[in-house]
């Protein structure tokens, strides 16, 4: 058997073996999806579409599940997860938008304007930053950023204005978005830089030779042509932001609360908890069947969300292909 593997591989054998490997990955994903869906079913069955709505206080509902014992009734399954979904959407959206702006501008600087010595330093550093474990960002967020905001940025007026709704301590939406942005920007920069580099030099030179300056040539030709790569980078980063759990759990205040945009700037100081953070924090109570079903339901929502994210990026890239090199 082993001797046969030592022989030179035919293309047919290589194709079959690698195909089996690739299919096994697919099978694992499908199995995971089905498993989670089955486990999550009781939670959706008892709540219906109101699972996605805001009913009651989500933290109280989760606490009730822990105490409901091994044979929960339908009332114990009650959950309105909207604050968690809302928090997930808010953090992911803002972090992606800020990250996209930062990363695109930095990538343009690196590719087009940075002097060679700076470029030689900045590119490896960015790649290094992309590999920093997120818990380190979380540590800095909770030890440095949150106390600073809690003590120096949030005014006493802001604290009293919402004191009967939610206490403001520093940890909250704003810190979560800031730390999340810092976390996902390096990988977006790295992918965008690669994307911009892969655009043929001849296109840029063609634009310059027509009397366009480098800044305009960058935007009108290079960035335009690199849009698929930029989207790919953004989606990868968004997926990371969507699933980030530990770091958010550290810096976001860990309250199942839906920040109210009508509160003005205080909005960004209000504590939140995302779906992923909830799964991490409540995983220890998983022995309670109601809690287990609820956590699996949250996981399913995240999984389906990530799937739609990929689908969305694929759809967004379709019109860009028309004038590209791929026909």
């Amino acid at each position, binding site marked *: 058997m082993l*001797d046969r593997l*030592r022989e030179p591989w035919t293309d047919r054998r290589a194709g079959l073996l690698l195909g089996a490997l690739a299919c096994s990955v697919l099978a694992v994903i499908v199995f995971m999806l089905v498993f989670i869906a089955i486990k999550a079913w009781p939670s959706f069955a008892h709540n219906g579409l109101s699972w996605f709505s805001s009913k009651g206080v989500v933290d109280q509902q989760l606490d009730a599940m822990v105490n409901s014992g091994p044979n929960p009734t339908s009332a114990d399954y009650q959950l309105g997860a909207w604050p968690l979904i809302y928090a997930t959407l808010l953090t992911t959206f803002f972090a992606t938008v800020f990250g996209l702006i930062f990363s695109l501008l930095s990538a343009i600087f690196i590719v087009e304007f940075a002097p060679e010595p700076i470029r030689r330093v900045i590119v490896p550093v960015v790649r290094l930053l992309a590999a920093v474990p997120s818990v380190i960002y979380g540590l800095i967020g909770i030890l440095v950023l949150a106390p600073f905001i809690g003590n120096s940025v949030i005014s006493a007026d802001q604290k009293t204005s919402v004191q009967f709704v939610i206490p403001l301590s520093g940890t909250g939406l704003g810190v979560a978005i800031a730390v999340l942005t810092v976390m996902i920007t390096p990988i977006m920069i790295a992918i965008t830089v690669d994307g911009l580099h892969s655009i043929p030099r*001849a*296109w840029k030179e*063609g634009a310059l*030779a*027509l009397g366009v300056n480098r800044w305009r040539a960058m935007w009108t030709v290079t960035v335009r*042509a690199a849009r698929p790569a930029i989207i790919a980078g953004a989606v990868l980063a968004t997926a990371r932001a969507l699933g980030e759990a530990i770091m958010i759990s550290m810096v976001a205040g860990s309250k199942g609360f839906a920040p109210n945009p009508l509160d003005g700037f205080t909005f960004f100081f209000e504590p939140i908890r995302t779906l992923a953070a909830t799964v991490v924090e409540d995983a220890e109570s998983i022995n309670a069947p109601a809690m287990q079903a609820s956590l699996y339901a949250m996981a399913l929502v995240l999984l389906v969300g990530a799937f739609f994210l990929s689908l969305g990026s694929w759809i967004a890239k379709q019109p860009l292909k028309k*004038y590209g090199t791929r026909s």
Partner: protein
Amino acid sequence: MIDPHESTARQQHVTSEPANGVMPPPVRRITLDRQPTVALPPSQDAVAIANAGDRSLAAAARPARGIAGPERMTIDGLSVYYGDNHAVKNVSLPIRQGEVLALIGPSGCGKTTLLRTLNRLTELTGSARREGLITLDGEDIDSLEVTEHRRRVSMVFQQPNPFPMSVFDNVAYALREQGSKRPKKKVLEPYVVDALQRAGLYDEVSSNLDHPALRLSGGQQQRLCIARALAARPEVLLMDEPCSALDPKSTNVIEELIVELRKELAIVIVTHNLQQAYRVGDHVAFMYLGDLVEYGPTDQVFDNPQAARTRDYIGGAFG
């Protein structure tokens, strides 16, 4: 355990000997049932033309020389260095309106560098350094805004490089980028059509100006690049081996185009193809290892070169 070398050796062994004693296929004789068609010997005229060299054919194909107009650009004592490499050495040349200046010479002799310097594209290379004076209509080009200068002195590259946009957007690109406000498509259309017509491409693309430019053929792409340059109404057009990536038919179309365009523009063309230089050039400059060896009217350079190196190059002694 099977040694991989052994197994390959065995395979070779099998292929080199007829398996199972099967005999090789019998040798078949080819018998002719009629006389083979023999190419006719070349006629006297053709022999005469062939003996006179390729150029007499080229001469037959070439149109009348252009009438030299006023001098638009002057290169005076130009030297370009890439780091320690002295790529262009003290070159002085005039570029006149209404005629085509052909730069010839072997690879790596500084032709393209010279051309890119005229458009100030060498400034994009960090290590490049320039000495000497280049003027456009009497003005030092360094005193002009670089974007303004490149609009007046446009360039067509060796590889067709249309942008990944529609045909229309490609041609309209320079027009859109010139103004601070983006003009409407309706306003741009006559200019775009005019540029495409001047580049001889309009008839082929008129039915669908929204067609992706990258799906045109190579020759069409190059003419699109010429149209894109012409749309900005340049005064000097620099062409860096514009036909080297193209088939003979497209080359022919573009050469006719060059001859047509020289009426209103000053054209500088770099070419490896001596016949092409002879066909389209009004003046020829021969460069070798960064030096300008010879400059003169095309007929004189080709028929009666003054320098020995020019004679050797044109005669095909080196390339």
